[in-house]
């Protein structure tokens, strides 16, 4: 059993490196398509300004992309270095989408990204557009496989425990691939990335418009971003993320926690708009509730209920008891007692084996757990409410703000009157960081909301770590913080430098800073 210190450090390091990597992913996902749109217009109209747009935003894309690549390898390594038992226990299933990501997506993206930057003079216009398209396709497919892997952690379908090898094994690849949670997450994450990139382009274009320079370039970029951004924001809202919450055990918990739904209400449940969740007393203080809304959103019906936290805990207590029976049978199987009765008992209860493993924190033997220990384990199945409750509300609030910004941007674009809307330009510029905040909060909702599980109902997080000394993790964590801080400063310096310089950085001689006199 790893010590609590090792577990906490491993989790902290994973959170730091994953949140950091996720600073660069959304922009790559969305900006790649914006480049495809701009270059398509170039290929169709032949106007060089659209080539300049593709190249300039491509430069910023490159600055961001390099960081995404550098920080992505960390995450792949880390499953092995810090989460060795996790890798051992579920690698049979979890490893496959990661390998497929490499074979199917990352190779495509990485091989063609060089040609995007260096192929302008060596390819025909259409060929180059094809290359840009493949980069976008590769990066988006990459997200697909990663989210299939992640969705399996949230809702582990198509797999079962094999007592011969003492690990989880794949029984159905189609179930893994078509995991309903994966589809929802994929669409949601992509759309979030598209919004991030759109606001990035919109905000920087607004800056040029506010400075009154390179206006032709800026207005066209603004228009592309406004259209793409509006479509993306709408798809986040229309397609929604909620449908995923009715599937899978951890998702039920997450839904209850997001909504601070302590008691199961008679359907359709009321929605808590604001309030202060109180974990100790299991209630929400100063709650502001809107009747019926939660039931309607979460279940899309008026008669299905949203299960409350207290009821979930009671259910989990039962599953812990069932898991203990599975654990006992497993001990017998491993000691060689493979008679029919034991096999049947194990088969009947093995779906709850993970719940018994929660007890390892309190008693290594599991089977001798007292009622008090079982109750503590059942309480552990619910993560702290307020981080999830608030992360979700801020994320949604930001989403509504983005809808407002893109609607206005689109409206004034259509009226060809963007230039004079100083308030909108300023709002867009200063809102650039907000999609990143929303994306990071989304990660917290999804991954903190999954606790205490590494694999929902299968493997508790605290069992997933490597058997390594805390000192090693202090070393690596210090290294990550040092290098990541340094790299972030460098990245932001270059991003600001080139964003300020604008299309003049292309050296075509047609833009603001290159005009006569500006060079001297």
């Amino acid at each position, binding site marked *: 059993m790893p010590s609590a210190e090792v577990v906490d450090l491993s989790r902290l390091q994973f959170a730091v490196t994953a949140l950091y990597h996720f600073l660069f992913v959304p922009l790559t996902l969305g900006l790649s398509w914006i480049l495809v749109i701009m270059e398509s217009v170039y290929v169709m109209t032949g106007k060089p300004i659209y080539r300049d747009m593709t190249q300039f935003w491509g430069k910023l894309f490159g600055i961001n*992309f390099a960081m995404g690549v*550098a920080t992505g390898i960390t995450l792949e390594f880390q499953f*092995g270095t810090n989460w060795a038992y996790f890798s051992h226990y579920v690698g049979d299933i979890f490893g496959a989408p990661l390998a497929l990501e490499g074979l199917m997506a*990352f190779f495509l993206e990485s*091989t*063609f990204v*060089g*040609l995007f930057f260096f192929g*302008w003079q060596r390819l025909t216009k259409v060929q180059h557009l094809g290359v840009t398209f493949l980069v976008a396709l590769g990066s988006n497919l990459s997200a697909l496989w990663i989210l299939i892997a992640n969705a399996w952690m949230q809702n582990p379908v198509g797999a079962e425990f094999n007592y011969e090898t*003492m690990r989880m094994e794949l029984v159905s690849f189609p179930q893994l691939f078509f995991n309903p949670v994966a589809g929802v997450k994929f669409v949601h994450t992509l759309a979030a990335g598209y919004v991030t990139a759109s606001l990035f382009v919109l905000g920087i274009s607004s800056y040029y418009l506010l400075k009154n320079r390179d206006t032709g370039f800026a207005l066209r970029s603004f228009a592309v971003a406004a259209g793409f951004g509006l479509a993306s924001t709408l798809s986040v809202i229309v397609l929604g993320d909620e449908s995923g919450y009715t599937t899978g055990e951890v998702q039920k918990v997450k839904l209850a926690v997001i909504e601070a739904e302590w008691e199961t209400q008679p359907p359709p449940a009321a929605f808590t708009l604001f309030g202060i969740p109180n974990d100790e007393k299991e209630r929400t203080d100063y709650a502001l509730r809107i009747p019926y809304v939660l039931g309607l959103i979460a279940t899309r019906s008026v008669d299905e209920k949203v299960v409350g936290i207290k009821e979930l805990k009671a259910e989990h207590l039962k599953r812990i008891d069932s898991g203990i029976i599975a654990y006992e049978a497993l001990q017998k199987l491993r000691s060689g007692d493979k008679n029919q009765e034991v096999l049947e008992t194990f088969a009947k209860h093995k779906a709850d084996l993970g719940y018994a493993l929660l007890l390892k924190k309190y008693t290594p033997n599991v089977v001798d757990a007292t009622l008090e220990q079982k109750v503590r384990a059942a309480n552990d199945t619910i993560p702290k409410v307020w981080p999830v409750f608030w992360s979700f509300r801020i994320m949604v609030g930001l989403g509504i703000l983005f809808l407002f910004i893109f609607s206005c941007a689109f409206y004034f674009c259509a009226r060809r009157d963007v230039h004079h809307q100083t308030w909108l330009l300023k709002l867009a510029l200063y809102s650039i960081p907000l999609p990143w905040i929303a994306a990071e909060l989304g990660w917290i909702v999804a991954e903190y909301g999954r606790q205490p599980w590494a694999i929902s109902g299968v493997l508790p997080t605290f069992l997933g770590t490597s058997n390594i000394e805390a000192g090693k993790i202090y070393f690596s964590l210090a290294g990550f913080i040092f290098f990541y801080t340094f790299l972030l400063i460098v990245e932001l310096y270059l991003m600001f430098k080139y964003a300020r310089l604008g299309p003049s950085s292309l050296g075509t001689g047609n833009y603001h800073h290159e005009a006569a006199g500006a060079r001297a």
Partner: protein
Amino acid sequence: MIFDYVTLKLIWWLFVGLLLIGFAVMDGFDMGVGTLLPFLGKTDEERRVIINSVGATWEGNQTWFITAGGAIFAAWPLLYAAAFSSFYIALMLTLFALFFRPVGFDYRSKVHDPRWRNAWDWGLFAGGTVPAIIFGVAFGNLLLGMPFQYDADLRVTYTGSFWALLNPFALLAGVVSLSMLTMHGAVYLQHRTDGEICARAKAAVKASAIVLIITFVLAGIWIATGIEGYKIISMPSPNAAFTPLAKVVEKSAGAWLNNYTLYPWTIFAPILAIGAAIVALLLSAANRTATAFIFSALSVAGVILTAGLAMFPFIMPSSTSPNSSLTAWDAVSSRRTLSIMFWATVVFLPLIAAYTSWVFRVLRGKITVQTIRENEHTSY
């Protein structure tokens, strides 16, 4: 599932080998170029020539590394867990060094300050050199056996230290790896550049190939005379699913040569490693750079195969608990996963090879100082 389990296990030993060779051949020359960068490029423009000779393609090449890692996770999850957690500090150092590559290539020439550029050049040097040495050291330690064991729940614990990895034999393996990738990078650079840089690269080919041949032979003699190998005394049928603890393993002097005596054809691997390095050296001297590169790649493949074939079926022997050793028979995924990943590899690897070749063809030709001057704003 047309293959039985044991065939799939064998195929996956070959596939992981293939991916590792793919990584060493494709990303290896980028790393070698990184190692050579500060020494072969005397001026900023020369360094830009060197960087741009690999700048457009290194990213795709590095994907061999990432995909090999992913494939090991999917096909050999036990190795992935045991090796990555055992080599913890070494891998973190590799990772920190690798950070400098993507940002080094992209950021270096975006600012004019010579101190900035010089700093990134050393970053690119570290990004090529540190992993090259550590991968060699890791292979050296795998040949020696690693101090780790499994408990009853199959949790793996490594009981050695980071410093114990830096033993004389492993360091020699580190030199083999570094000289091999430096040679490979130098041949590539000789092919893609002209004038002074090309001449310096040629000299580097000579030096590194000679070091490679000498250290490779030394390591071979060491293995034959001074290192205990491992052999399986008993185990369940390789066609079955079982945990590492189900077999009995013994240390035994000279066991790493068993495969070479049992299957004499396997001797082609060390012959290829040395022979192809000599041919690459001669072709480089004769300025036949394209063919030299092919032979350099063959030499790289030979070196990796030599180590792999010596150890087969072992992939990570345990020195403190030999029964915990990981082999191609018990470090593996289920038959279903191996089968699915087999088909994915068979479909996608040729596709990757095809589009990678196309990209290299589009970007072919020599990079010169003139090229850099003409593309001041787009070059790295």
